[in-house]
């Protein structure tokens, strides 16, 4: 008995290498114990319940049709999406001029691709963005260089969604920086004003702000001023974006060690230069990954403009489905629109993950 114990003792001490990691086979993972088996059966049932939905969406679906009214025979009516594709993407923009919004989207895609790499970020890129946005708005509006004018009430679809997201973030950003700096200020007046603005906007639902913009703004401004609906909606989205961006930027400002500003002060650098050249660049670098999350939120939030009657992509999808020739294919229409939103947001979130890995690997620049 004692011999055996002594033996086993020596065996253990000589083979003190770390235990081998047990490689589990797929079958053990799925049916290894009672819990795993139960989970497998449960998820199996869950997956099985999707079979009718897939059946509806693919096997029973009508992809091409000549007669809209017979389109939906037990399956999805994707022929509707093919027929209404242009309307959902471009809305009520005059059909002969739809190359213009197409060009706008191409420009936007080009600029986004050009701005992906952090190495290219700088003043030049910012100016390029400014120029491109001006060009995009001119293209949409027309009235210059022989382009026929198209009022903003006729704009619609995906370009409106993208422009609203881009402009609200772009216009909101400078305000956000000011609000964030104000909230971190040691002076009471800017601090209180910033806190009041940020908390007020963040405490309200976006629908409330859109109501204010679309119904109250005409009352608040002098009688002669008329601002079109798209601009009013943009104002609400900008205020909303500014408040949320401000909180993100504040996080970045808090992350910059106070020693940076103190050292600059000791060197006699004026305080606005300290903020502009020393504190802000470091703070903004830190918050770029969370800023992409705010971008996703804003892209999704532009869909709310449907409530105040702005013709974005979701509204276009809804209006397209009301066509009495088709068998009310709302579900198909929303799935299509949701798919486009998904592609945009999923793209941004993957980009954000890639950026974060960049941050972990090295600092920017």
């Amino acid at each position: 008995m004692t011999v055996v114990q002594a033996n086993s003792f020596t065996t253990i001490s000589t083979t003190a290498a770390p235990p081998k990691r047990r490689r589990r086979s797929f079958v053990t993972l799925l049916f290894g114990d009672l819990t795993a088996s139960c989970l497998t059966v449960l998820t199996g049932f869950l997956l099985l319940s999707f079979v009718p939905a897939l059946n509806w969406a693919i096997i029973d679906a009508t992809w091409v049709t000549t007669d809209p009214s017979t389109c939906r025979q037990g399956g999805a009516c994707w022929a509707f999406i093919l027929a209404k594709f242009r309307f959902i993407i471009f809305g009520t923009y005059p059909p002969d001029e739809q190359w213009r919004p197409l060009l706008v989207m191409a420009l936007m895609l080009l600029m986004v691709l050009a701005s992906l790499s952090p190495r290219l970020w700088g003043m030049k890129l910012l100016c390029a963005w400014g120029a491109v946005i001006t060009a995009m708005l001119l293209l949409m509006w027309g009235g210059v260089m022989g382009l026929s004018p198209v009022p903003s009430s006729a704009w619609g679809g995906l370009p409106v969604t993208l422009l609203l997201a881009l402009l609200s973030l772009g216009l909101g950003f400078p305000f956000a920086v000011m609000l964030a700096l104000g909230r971190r200020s040691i002076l009471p007046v800017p601090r209180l004003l910033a806190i009041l603005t940020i908390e007020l906007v963040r405490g309200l639902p976006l629908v409330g702000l859109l109501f204010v913009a679309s119904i109250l703004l005409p009352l608040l401004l002098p009688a002669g001023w008329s601002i079109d609906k798209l601009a009013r909606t943009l104002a609400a989205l900008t205020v909303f974006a500014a408040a949320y961006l401000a909180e993100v930027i504040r996080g970045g400002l808090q992350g910059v060690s106070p020693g940076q500003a103190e050292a600059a002060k000791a060197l006699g650098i004026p305080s606005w230069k300290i903020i502009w050249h020393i504190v802000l660049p470091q703070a903004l670098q830190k918050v770029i990954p969370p800023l992409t999350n705010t971008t996703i939120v804003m892209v999704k939030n532009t869909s709310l403009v449907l409530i105040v009657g702005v013709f974005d992509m979701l509204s276009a999808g809804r209006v397209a489905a009301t066509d009495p020739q088709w068998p009310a294919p709302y579900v198909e229409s929303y799935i299509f629109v949701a798919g486009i939103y998904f592609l945009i947001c999923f793209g941004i979130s993957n980009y954000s993950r890639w950026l974060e890995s960049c941050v972990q690997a090295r600092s920017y620049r």
Partner: protein
Amino acid sequence: MLTGLLDNRRFRSWAGQIVLLGGFAALILWLVTNTIENLDARGIKVGFDFLQRQANFPISESVLPYNPSDSFLWAYITGLGNTIFISLIAIFFSTLLGLIVGLARRSRHPLTAYLSGVFVTTARNMPLIVHLLFWYALATTMLPAPRQAYNPLPGVYLSLRGLYLPSVGFNGSGLAILLATTVVCLLAYLLWNRLRDRVYRAGLGRPVAAALIVLILSAVYIVVRTTGEVSTPEMRGFNFAGGFRLSSEFTALMVGLVIYTSAFIGEIIRGGIDAISAGQWEAGRAVGLSERHVLTKIVMPQALRIIIPPMTSQYLSTIKNTTLALAVGYPELGLVVGTVINQTGQALESIGILLAVFLTLSIAVSLFMNWYNAHVALVEAR
């Protein structure tokens, strides 16, 4: 003299602040004078007198009793009641589903983890309003007519008219008995909480707990059977009669809101659990606790402190998100406000009420969650 004053730091900061405050006040004053002029020009009278007038518009469903002869004030309160009602239900169910999703994503079971990952990615990357409109379209165009209604469980019917569930009605004495049973059950629970440790130490934990559950369930069953009138929905003519109806609007709103919110809550809970070091799990296992006990007794209480702050903002945004219900026509506060503005033109007051209510709700929830956070943090200090 003047340059000396400008070089003075304190003077500059005070002058700057005064200018800022003055500018802000001037902006407000400008907006107010504009508004007064505009209102005069359009002949709109500002004031809350209209709240006492008869509303004269219907509200399709509500938690509080309402009919069109009630006042505008009561219409607002009814809308607010609906807002709070859907907020509470959405928060409850999405926390439950979010917990399942979050735990499933951490599961070692590949199928479960993958499925939950797909769910989170899909649900989070689409706008909430698209979720709502999709489910509403599904409920109003794709479901069968009442005659061919889906019947997934006995007494549950799903059709174009909404979701029908069995209900239990109580008459006067039945209600009293029900109340008494509830009180007895509550007392039993409190007593059980007191004695639980002693019972477990005596090794009688499981049998006693099982017996208690059986006892309570049979008590509820007997009470319902003898005094309540169970009403199951039945097809009569063109529609269902009896039972309890959830409208298509409500059902679509709840499904959309819960799916969207639970994806976010699932990620918050997963993040909280992931933040607890693996050593805690390993130590728990080494002590001989079961996997479930390690999770509920060791990891969860610590994860809760990380989870609560983001959960607060998630709950707040859920409350704010309920305003999107007006896209599917569920009469919450936003929809009532819209209707009142159409009817009376009292936009200033109505939107003011909407904003004030949501600010109050936001502040109330964050105060409550701060209190709860402090409560949880106190446990750590002990």
